[in-house]
């Protein structure tokens, strides 16, 4: 099995932290004072329609994002744990990776499209489930990218202090 390398852990933790902050903020409004709630709602207003009938409610207060978006966000921490379980495997080539991303968006697209043309009436469950599929795949890509980024950072640079010293060592003349 593939083993986690030095940078992978830090990348994985960074990706998980971003994911949890995203889920936490999106779920926060019902637990916040009424005066702070609108501010959190506005943060997400640019990235979600926030229609109350299409959002989950806790004690009558809607979350900051809709069903599909909360499913999408929840997919990110799930993907983080999946990445950990698979020990950072990346079973995609440069040709299959975009295809996997597009395929993961397909259930959400069909759920939305069929509802639009009247073939199917989507439900909160179908919206969350399709968002979750897309979020898990996107989250896996995101976690893999951050793990790779931290691994690249943890590699010694060719211009590290030691090599700099070697490069700048004065030539001895005889």
């Amino acid at each position: 099995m593939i083993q986690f390398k030095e940078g992978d852990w830090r990348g994985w933790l960074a990706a998980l932290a971003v994911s949890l902050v995203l889920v936490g903020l999106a779920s926060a409004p019902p637990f916040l004072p009424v005066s702070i709630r609108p501010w959190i709602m506005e943060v997400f207003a640019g990235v979600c329609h926030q229609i109350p009938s299409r959002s989950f409610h806790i004690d009558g207060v809607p979350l900051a994002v809709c069903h599909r978006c909360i499913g999408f966000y929840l997919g990110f921490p799930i993907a983080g744990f999946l990445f950990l379980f698979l020990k950072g495997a990346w079973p995609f080539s440069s040709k299959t990776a975009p295809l996997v991303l597009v395929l993961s968006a397909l259930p959400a697209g069909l759920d939305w499209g069929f509802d639009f043309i009247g073939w199917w009436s989507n439900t909160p469950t179908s919206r969350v489930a399709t968002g979750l599929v897309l979020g898990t795949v996107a989250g896996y890509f995101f976690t893999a990218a951050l793990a790779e980024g931290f691994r690249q950072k943890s590699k010694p640079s060719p211009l590290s202090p030691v090599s700099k010293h070697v490069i700048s060592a004065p030539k001895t003349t005889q």
Partner: protein
Amino acid sequence: MNKKWPIIIGIAVALVFSIYPLRYANAFCCMGIILAGMQGAVLRGRAQGFKLETTHALRLGASIGLGAAVIMLLINTLIGLTLKNWIVFDPIPSFMYTFFFRLIEGIIDIAGNTPSFSDNGGPGPMARFLFQIPSNVLFGGIGGAIGASLFRQETPIFQHPE
């Protein structure tokens, strides 16, 4: 390709998803800005011979998100000053979405009565675009990172021991 082109094209993608009527295609809400970040990272990666560092892609995606949010803020402020209640760039027009969904559900007449979360205080309509800056930067960065992962080398789940 000029180094600035991926950023310009990425911002253009984000703006296209924010202009009427294409914004209706933005069914996945944050899809427009994530796609913009990905687009920028893929273009930059291709220009660099299919190699792109994640930190570079994150910065690129975040720059695209920031650029798109600032342009939306400036244009909407300028137009809002001359034509009141006019918003040109709006990725998620809640009112129109409500109208659209209720149209499907067969209830057209109450579409205009959408409750606004800003009614009970909060930052106000123009400040929404100011608030869009951090969320655009975050989602643009996520898009950039996803774009960078497309250039990763394959490592199968099960590998033979070397």
